[in-house]
């Protein structure tokens, strides 16, 4: 093979691709285009899950911290006064220390008051991530978030019910009503208060103010109400209050726990509901039957969107994985691999249908053997090859080369290697750039990288670009393997051996991608250290998202090799069954 000339051509092609990539790429729109059909919606679902668990966490954490506070107060019983004076915010504690039972309703009321807060939290999270999670999840993500919010708020209702019930049993006015007279009442009760009174009245306004500042009106009102209630309680006899409060607190605690449990359950339900993203995607793949078609559709949507955007404004194009993946011909290779795979499958079925009896059983068993050799171990569980050396990526490349050699088809991973090296080169450069302030630029580098210091967006583009390129090259590698296994490969190597090597190869490629994505992410974090999390986080997230997408594509590509290997097995097996 006159390799060099081809290489030259490839190089040119790659360079061209890079140019094109820069012009065409766009980040923000990608999600719209792709997420609907994205095979990795599964991941999104998981991400989502974390989000949705959040409210529950908040609640729990809140309750815990309050209880901790209370406990702390009990312990520090002696230093009541100074503490109360210092800790304005904990003023509620002052009456409660005298009557510890009060803590509980306070806690729960506190929680109840947090309810709107928690919901707000969810919403504002959804909003604030509008540029990141929100848009990156597309409308689907948003609907998931809003359903989560709805659930949380319904749970919130339950909780407020409990609290209201508790309040009713205390025989007091609703917080809102209380708030109206809160101040007055509190002041009125001040003289009769012995210990809690003065502290309460002093701090009441303060708390109110803070409430206004921090949580808004509703909370302020609640605070007022709470204080009003306490003031009233102060007027009652201690023992009756104690018993009422004890009962109430039990109800409230039980109710609170129920509510937490409910939140947990609901969250799980929603997660399960959210998972259809994955199912849907799988379904979609089944419907259209080919991954490349799905990807292509997604890419086309993105192109259309881009086109519209072009007319609207000349927004700076950013990295769009789908477009880049196509630019690097990943899509074409995947499509070609699919064609090979389907054709092989057809031939395979034709051969099988021509068999009967023992022959059929034997052949089927052999084919199943190949199939089971191609079950990918979980990627986390490093294969024996990878685990010793996963620190050194160069070795990883050697492993890939070696495994390809074992496949025995006369392919070398040159292009893949180059793609990797390119990624490493810019990584290094960016890291050098970002450590000293004005580092000397690598002038001779031919990469697309610009000499000036890169912004987070630039680095992000590079990340996505590298992921797309490495993935495209990996798919190309698998495609070439497929071609050569079917035609022109050394028949001395059994399909079984190839299956085993290719399996390990795929694991190694996926491993490589995950190592890369971690590097990218850390590089991104370094460069974007000064950026706001709202800007940085979505970028980092998208790197990981695309990395897992990449892994998915490679694994899908790998699965396409199965019928090819099976057919080649039949071609080369002793019985001349298959047509060549």
């Amino acid at each position, binding site marked *: *093979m*006159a390799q060099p*000339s*081809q290489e030259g*051509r490839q190089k*040119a*092609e790659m360079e*061209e691709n890079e*140019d*094109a990539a820069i*012009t*065409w790429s766009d980040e923000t729109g990608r999600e719209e285009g792709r997420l609907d059909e994205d095979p990795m919606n599964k991941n999104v679902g998981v991400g989502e899950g974390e989000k949705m668990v959040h409210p529950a966490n908040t609640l729990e954490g809140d309750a815990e911290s309050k209880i901790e506070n209370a406990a702390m107060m009990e312990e520090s019983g002696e230093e009541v006064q100074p503490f109360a004076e210092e800790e304005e915010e904990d003023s509620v504690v002052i009456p409660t220390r005298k009557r510890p039972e009060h803590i509980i309703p306070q806690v729960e009321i506190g929680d109840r008051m947090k309810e709107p807060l928690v919901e707000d939290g969810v919403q504002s999270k959804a909003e604030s991530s509008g540029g990141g999670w929100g848009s990156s999840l597309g409308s689907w993500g948003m609907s998931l978030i809003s359903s989560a919010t709805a659930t949380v708020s319904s749970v919130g209702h339950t909780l407020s019910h409990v609290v209201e019930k508790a309040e009713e049993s205390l025989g007091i006015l609703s917080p809102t009503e209380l708030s109206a007279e809160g101040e007055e009442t509190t002041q009125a009760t001040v003289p009769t208060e012995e210990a809690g009174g003065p502290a309460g009245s002093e701090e009441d306004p303060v708390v109110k103010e803070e409430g206004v500042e921090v949580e808004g009106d509703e909370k302020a009102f609640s605070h007022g109400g709470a204080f009003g209630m306490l003031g009233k309680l102060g007027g009652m006899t201690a023992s009756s209050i104690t018993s009422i409060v004890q009962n109430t607190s039990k109800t409230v605690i039980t109710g609170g726990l129920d509510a937490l449990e409910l939140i947990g359950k609901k969250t799980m339900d929603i997660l399960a509901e959210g998972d259809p993203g994955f199912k849907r995607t799988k379904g979609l793949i089944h419907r259209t*039957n*080919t991954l490349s*078609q799905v990807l*292509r559709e997604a890419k*086309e949507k993105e*192109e*259309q969107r*881009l*086109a519209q955007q*072009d007319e609207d404004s000349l927004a700076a194009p950013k990295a769009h994985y789908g*477009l880049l993946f196509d630019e690097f*011909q990943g899509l*074409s*290779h995947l499509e*070609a691999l*699919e*064609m*090979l795979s*389907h*054709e*092989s*499958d*057809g*031939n395979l*079925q*034709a051969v099988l249908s021509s068999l009967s009896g023992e022959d059929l059983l034997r052949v089927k068993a052999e084919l199943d053997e190949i199939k089971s050799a191609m079950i990918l171990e979980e990627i986390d569980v490093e294969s024996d090859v990878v685990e010793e050396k996963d620190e050194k990526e160069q070795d990883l490349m050697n492993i890939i080369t070696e495994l390809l050699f074992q496949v025995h088809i006369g392919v070398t991973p040159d292009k893949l290697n180059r793609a990797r090296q390119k990624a490493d080169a810019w990584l290094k450069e960016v890291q050098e750039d970002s450590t000293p302030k004005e580092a000397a630029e690598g002038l001779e580098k031919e990469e697309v990288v610009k000499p000036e210091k890169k912004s987070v967006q630039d680095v992000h583009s590079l990340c996505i670009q590298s992921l797309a390129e490495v993935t495209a090259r990996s798919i190309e590698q698998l*495609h*070439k393997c497929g*071609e*050569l296994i*079917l*035609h*022109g490969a050394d028949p001395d190597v059994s399909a079984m051996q190839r299956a085993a090597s290719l399996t390990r190869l795929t694991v190694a490629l996926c491993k490589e991608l995950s190592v890369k994505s971690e590097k990218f992410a850390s590089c991104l974090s370094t460069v974007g250290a000064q950026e706001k999390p709202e800007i940085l986080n979505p970028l980092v997230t998208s790197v990981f998202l695309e990395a897992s997408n990449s892994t998915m594509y490679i694994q899908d590509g790998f699965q396409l090799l199965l019928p090819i290997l099976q057919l080649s097995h039949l071609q080369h097996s002793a019985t001349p069954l298959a*047509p*060549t």
Partner: protein
Amino acid sequence: MLCLKALMHPTPPPTPPPHHSHPLRVLVMADCPHTIGVEFGTRIIEVSGQKVKLQIWDTAGQERFRAVTRSYYRGAAGALMVYDITRRSTYNHLSSWLTDARNLTNPNTVIFLIGNKADLEAQRDVTYEEAKQFAEENGLLFLEASAKTGDNVEEAFLETAKKIYQNIQDGSLDLNAAESGVQHKPATSQPGRLPNDTQPAKDACSC
């Protein structure tokens, strides 16, 4: 000097992607020893004001890869059959390529015959008239081009794109049907359909 796959290079400057439709898959069949299986390229051509993206599948002409490349014929909107005007052996492949192309692609797939290395007039081994006649007999478009000088290269792609576009417009080429037909149909390359042309490919192409 160059195989037709080199027609894609030097590549045109990056153009914004076309704003509509699937890319049109165009096969290039050329006897070039450097291609293993298939290589890809893209080219964006403007046809009657519309940008059309050609997705070029550059298939290896070598005999030993013919079995592989046959897998890729289906779904192609167009095919460029390239021979070298200075080597008759490459011209002799044409009939078997044509058979493949006809059998494995949509009946309305545009097939374009291209005589490459038109710059090497002195070494011409296949006359223009002969090839022209072959093209007419078989209903092929025909051009002589030079990948080296770039003569007629753009024209070849442009003509192909135009013709495909025209076929799509008048409904004779339904790409969607062709595309979907591709993936779901079982393989068509059955045993017994061996290439008529069994002569070993001479890798004499000087690229």
